[in-house]
């Protein structure tokens, strides 16, 4: 009898397991896709030289092989699938499109000439070409067949790189200083016209200085143009670029596996630390990464104290209970309000109302705070993530054993002392959990940010060495918005696709890193007071 009894419900455990597996599979698939696509962007690929059946020569990297349906064949029963290659050919200035498709049947032969160079330029993206010669200073010619060629190429690029840095520094520091001095005087004159005479000499002097520096700078710029690099792309005429145009290069067909890996790491570092160029489709994404980081940290710093204070009042002091309950439901629901609504609120309240009031009161040149900026974006997101922090703080306050509260009061503490000396430290792990969740949510938001301070291009970082170091009024870049901009606003979305994946991968890595940091801190605190009591 006993063994015949069927235990009801046990057989449905598989339902739970299936639900979990489904979730995990989807997440793994999504992450896998992003990681794979994101990382392959950086992996240096071989350059094909393809001869086609119609006697064309195509040079490029084979990105993938896909199939398409040949619409010319009308008979539905026939095999209409055609394999085609997806090729990255670069050389946008010559070919017009950096990506193209090629039906496999049209490929006559392929080869991998070792001489190919993959060269990133300031404009028009990458060039994949056969180098022909270098002309130094308009005189000395070094042919590609020369032994010294590679050496000279490297040293010249290093030289121009250093020069470029020097020019950048010069423009920023020397010219920037004179410029800001002139600007200051102009502002003072604007306010009080009688000062014009007092400053006339000084202004003249500064303007002369500025002119001199400008000349110096343009001389340096000319230096950049002196050396030239000549190359040919099969099927096109010989071209030349000045070395000032070349960012970096490598020989993709000469790399060993180890060399490929080194280049791969180098590509990733380059992507992370460089500024974007060419409508964000080339170069790196450092300003966006940095902007996201600064904004997320600022947001956490704003939301955590605010949320904790609110939760403490609600949990410890607020009465009567029915009103608190309604309030709690309202706060929970706040978490479900579409984020764009918060964006609109931020724009109306922070930017237009508070920002413009600040400008008026402190007589700042409008718009300083009266327009979107880092501060307002962080505040808007802080508002958006506030419910998360309040809920988790309240929950962890609730979880503090009643005995500890009583013990604190029995020791003669006031309620206030009990809260700040005992309850808050005891619920710190829960508070940090709330902060982690808030960071995860905040870092990924895009919609509200578009209204309150994120822009497509803002190469100046919001945190730098000029006073007051953190520029809360400055507009900034954001990885989430960058993804949107690349994927949907860029003129050549096909060309931007790898960048979209790489940026997504970076955003996810950033969020995970921030969360990991939070988790480590939380575990430290938890271990310090590890006990069965919690």
């Amino acid at each position: 009898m006993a063994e015949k009894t069927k235990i009801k419900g046990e057989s449905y455990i598989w339902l739970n397991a299936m639900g979990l597996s489904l979730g995990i599979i989807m997440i793994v698939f999504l992450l896998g896709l992003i990681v794979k696509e994101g990382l392959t962007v950086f992996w240096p690929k071989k350059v094909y030289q393809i001869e086609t059946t119609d006697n064309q020569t195509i040079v490029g990297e084979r990105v993938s092989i896909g199939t398409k349906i040949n619409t010319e064949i009308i008979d539905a029963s026939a095999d209409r699938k055609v394999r085609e290659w997806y090729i990255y050919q670069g050389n946008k200035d010559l070919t017009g499109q950096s990506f193209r498709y090629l039906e496999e049947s049209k490929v006559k032969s392929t080869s991998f000439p070792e001489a190919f160079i993959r060269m990133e330029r300031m404009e028009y993206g990458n060039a994949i070409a056969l180098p022909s010669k270098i002309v130094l200073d308009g005189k000395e010619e070094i042919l590609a067949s020369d032994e010294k060629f590679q050496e000279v190429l490297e040293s010249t690029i290093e030289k121009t790189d250093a020069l470029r840095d020097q020019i950048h520094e010069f423009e920023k520091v020397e010219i920037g200083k004179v410029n800001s001095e002139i600007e200051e005087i102009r502002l003072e004159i604007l306010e009080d016209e009688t000062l014009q005479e007092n400053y006339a000499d000084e202004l003249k002097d500064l303007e002369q200085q500025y002119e001199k520096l400008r000349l110096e700078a343009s001389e340096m710029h000319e230096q950049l143009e002196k050396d030239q690099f000549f190359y040919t792309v099969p099927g096109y005429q010989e071209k030349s670029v000045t070395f000032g145009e070349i960012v970096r290069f490598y020989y993709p067909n000469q790399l060993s596996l180890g060399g490929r890996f080194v280049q791969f790491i180098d590509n990733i570092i380059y992507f992370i630390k460089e500024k974007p160029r060419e409508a964000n489709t080339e170069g790196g994404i450092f300003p966006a990464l940095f902007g996201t980081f600064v904004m997320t940290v600022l947001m956490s710093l704003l939301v955590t104290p605010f949320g904790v204070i609110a939760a403490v009042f609600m949990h410890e002091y607020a009465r009567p209970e029915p009103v608190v309950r309604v309030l709690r439901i309202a706060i929970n629901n706040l978490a479900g309000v579409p984020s764009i609504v918060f964006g609109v609120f931020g724009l109306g309240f922070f930017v237009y109302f508070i920002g413009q009031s600040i400008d008026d009161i402190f007589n700042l040149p409008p718009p300083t705070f009266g327009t979107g900026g880092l501060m307002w974006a962080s505040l808007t997101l802080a508002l958006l993530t506030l419910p998360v922090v309040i809920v988790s703080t309240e929950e962890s306050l609730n979880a503090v054993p009643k005995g500890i509260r009583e013990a604190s009061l029995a020791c003669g503490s006031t309620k206030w002392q009990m809260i700040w000396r005992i309850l808050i430290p005891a619920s710190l792990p829960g508070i940090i959990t709330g902060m982690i969740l808030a960071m995860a949510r905040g870092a990924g938001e895009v919609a509200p940010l578009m209204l309150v301070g994120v822009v497509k291009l803002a190469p100046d970082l919001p945190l730098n060495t000029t006073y007051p170091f953190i520029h809360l009024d400055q507009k900034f870049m954001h990885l989430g918005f960058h993804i949107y901009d690349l994927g949907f606003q860029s003129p050549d979305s096909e060309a931007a696709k790898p960048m979209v994946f790489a940026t997504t991968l970076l955003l996810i890595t950033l969020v995970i890193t921030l969360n990991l940091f939070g988790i480590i801190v939380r575990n430290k605190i938890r271990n310090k007071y590890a006990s069965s009591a919690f």
Partner: protein
Amino acid sequence: MTVDIQSNSKEADVKNTGFNVEEKSSSSRVLERNVKDGSNLMSPETGQYLSNNNTDVIENPIISVKNFDFSYGNNKVLHDINLDVPEKEIVAFIGPSGCGKSTLLRSMNRMNDLVDVANYEGEIIIRDQNIFDPALDVIGLRRRVGMVFQKSNPFPKSIYENVIFGLRIIGENRKSFLDETVERCLRSAALWDEVKDRLHESAFGLSGGQMQRLCIARAIANEPEIVLMDEPCSALDPVATVKVEELMLELKKNYTIVIVTHNMQQASRVSDRTAFFYLGELVEYAKTERIFSNPSNPKTEDYISGRFG
């Protein structure tokens, strides 16, 4: 909270019915014995089981409870309690669950203020001052009347910080003084030798018995006059219990201790006086030897001999 008490008292009601039946049968026996003793104490027929009729009178009690009633909302849990606690003695409160002994104990340092629906009448006088006087400083009262709880409840801080919590909150930060206090209190709590090398480690690393002794050390760091203990050994093993009991006897030299316990042996081992509560009434209050050897009330005898409760 309220719900809890109600369910407890319902439970007690059920017991009560059973008990009353038994009472009748035992009353004749009690009378017999009373006659034998030559002490004519009380008549069970009147149903009056008030305070003790012992001849010994407590002079200058440190705590004096007078006509004290207490209720949670509509649920009255203490009826007209009168009880004096002498200085530097241990007084044990015994009785079945829900009889109000913990409530009385918690009233002595006004821990019941935390319960919104608590109401009381009557007075508790500690050192000639009614503790319910609106002008009284509750914080000051709690510093004078320390408390140790049933479940050890160290703070999520180091052992050191746990002991001196009461000093920190009044802004005492002199290191030498704090160090001294920590050593004194931990020595008094018989914990110093076990933890002196890890004072700055988390208090949660201690064993259950050690934690409870830490809580006692914490309670005496404020140098209170009275220490209230609410079933301090109920969560401890016998070895730890013995240690805490020894500690209580040691502490008696300097402090007045009121302890609530469910352990009759414990009450008989440590206390000087014992009060038996039943259904919110103080049934009997006398010297411990007397309560355990020769209780004047049949309910007390039934309870301590394990016939119910």
